[in-house]
């Protein structure tokens, strides 16, 4: 399974890929290769993380046709949406991406991750909201594998807040999934 997480620097894009990959590789007995690309800007530049998850050993570490695209900025959406598989899953940041009409059999879900994070006290939690949302909808890793992967990736004092954000995203994801059915 090929997943692309995209947005701009500072949104915690790489960390989303990192935690999903860690959950798959360390807690779900899968192979997971994360690669990243970023510009020279520390903040605000285009940024993406590519994750390949597989039951077998991953020989070729890069994406060919993504099955899942997460777009957290308009720029990322415009750039990467055309690459998405025809029946892929597209997750967008509701407030930051104005989508075009859905192409082919793509299943598209939106979440106001940044807004939810701000309500939790800091927009920096947006990536954890998104992580919960991704896992609820795509089931790329079991929820427990995800939760087990979080400690150590954020400072201990912020762990609970991030878990809360993740849970909110997850709940919202399950709701959206149910609505879609």
């Amino acid at each position, binding site marked *: 399974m090929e997943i692309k997480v995209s947005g701009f620097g500072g949104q915690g894009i790489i960390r989303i890929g990192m935690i999903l990959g860690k959950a798959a*590789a*360390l807690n779900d007995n899968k192979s997971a290769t994360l*690669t990243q*690309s970023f*510009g020279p800007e520390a903040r605000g530049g285009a940024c993406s993380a590519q994750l390949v998850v597989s039951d077998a050993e991953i*020989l*070729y*570490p*890069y994406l060919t046709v993504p099955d899942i695209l997460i777009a957290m900025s308009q720029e990322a959406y415009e750039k990467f949406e055309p690459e998405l598989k025809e029946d892929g899953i597209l997750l967008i940041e509701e407030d930051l991406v104005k989508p075009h009409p859905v192409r082919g059999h793509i299943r598209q879900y939106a979440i106001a991750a940044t807004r939810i994070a701000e309500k939790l006290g800091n927009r920096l939690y947006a990536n954890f909201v998104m992580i919960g949302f991704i896992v609820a909808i795509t089931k790329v890793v079991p929820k427990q594998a995800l939760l087990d992967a979080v400690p150590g990736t954020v400072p201990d004092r912020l762990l609970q807040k991030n878990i809360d954000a993740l849970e909110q995203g997850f709940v919202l994801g399950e709701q959206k999934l149910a609505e879609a059915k």
Partner: protein
Amino acid sequence: MNQRPRGPVLTGAHYLDGDHACAEGAIAAGCRFIAGYPITPSTEVAERLAERFPRIGGTFIQMEDELASIAAVLGAAWGGARAMTVTSGPGFSLMMENIGLGVMTETPCVVVNVQRGGPSTGLPTLTGQQDMMQARWGSHGDYEIIALSPSSPQECFDLTVTCFNLSEKYRVPVMFMMDECVGHMTEKVVIPEADTIDVWPRRWYRGPRDKYLPYAPDKDGVPPMIRAGDDHRVHITGLTHDARGYPIINAECQQICVSRLTDKIRDNADDLVMVKEEQLRGADVVVVAYGISARVATKAITDARKKGIKVGFLRLITVWPFPEKKIRDLAGKVGCLVMPEINLGQMYREVERAAAGKCRTMLVPHCGGWVHDPEDILKAIIEGAK
């Protein structure tokens, strides 16, 4: 919860990128001194060690530039530390002079180069494999070097340990030729129990103090070492020197000094060369690759096999000394050697030279900035199979 204290070696499964895995490899190899200067895309190695070292008894110093970093590493090695520096292309260029000093004075140390696209400032955040020849020939004069190239974060860990071991065994700076892709690629890295990690000790001199000759070699051509401060009163110089370490400026001494420096690597090439071989027997085409290119080539190879082409794969882990014998043997047996690399033909020259016209050789070049499209490698394989 009873948590075991975290020892220096981070035993267990971790999700690490190549840079971080390299840092952990250095710790596992007993490295406790690193001098560095920030440069993308290698900085993460130094950052991780700056964070880890004060908790495990290591020392990190950020020097004023790369010239200073490599000089400090050489000094630290003679001070008795297992030492390393980390850099990328432009910094690697600046280190060249003292890499020569390291070779001449037979100073064990590891130089990690997380390669990016060049020349000059080039592509700071994007990949390249364009320093391969510089690793071999970048400093002036005749010398031999050891260089390894990893294809995965796991290898970034494993081979960093190997780099230290080889540098101690052969008393030579060892180049670890990573690239941005491997450095920033995150995968599961399994770190073994500390006891099971093979760490080779320094070749300490154990004879009487006043009998020590810094450059009198053991049987394998490598001299034993001492550390500064133990009253051996050695003189270590970058000038051509005799067994005492004294400068002798003439052709005879140059002959003895330089040929031993090169022979200790050349004569032990069989011990040093590490390759991974796959379906070489009966192959019509063999893909020769290293580093991230080897990883990318696997897709092309798989696709080619699906088309019924007999493709073998020779992955170079040791890039210097160049696995010449392997290539020479292969050249007599296969129709074509295909080599993708992220430069316009560096290691390819070696392949061509070793093949010596006994089979076709094809370069799949790439200027850097990204990896090959596997399609391009596949095309070359199909062409080579004709």
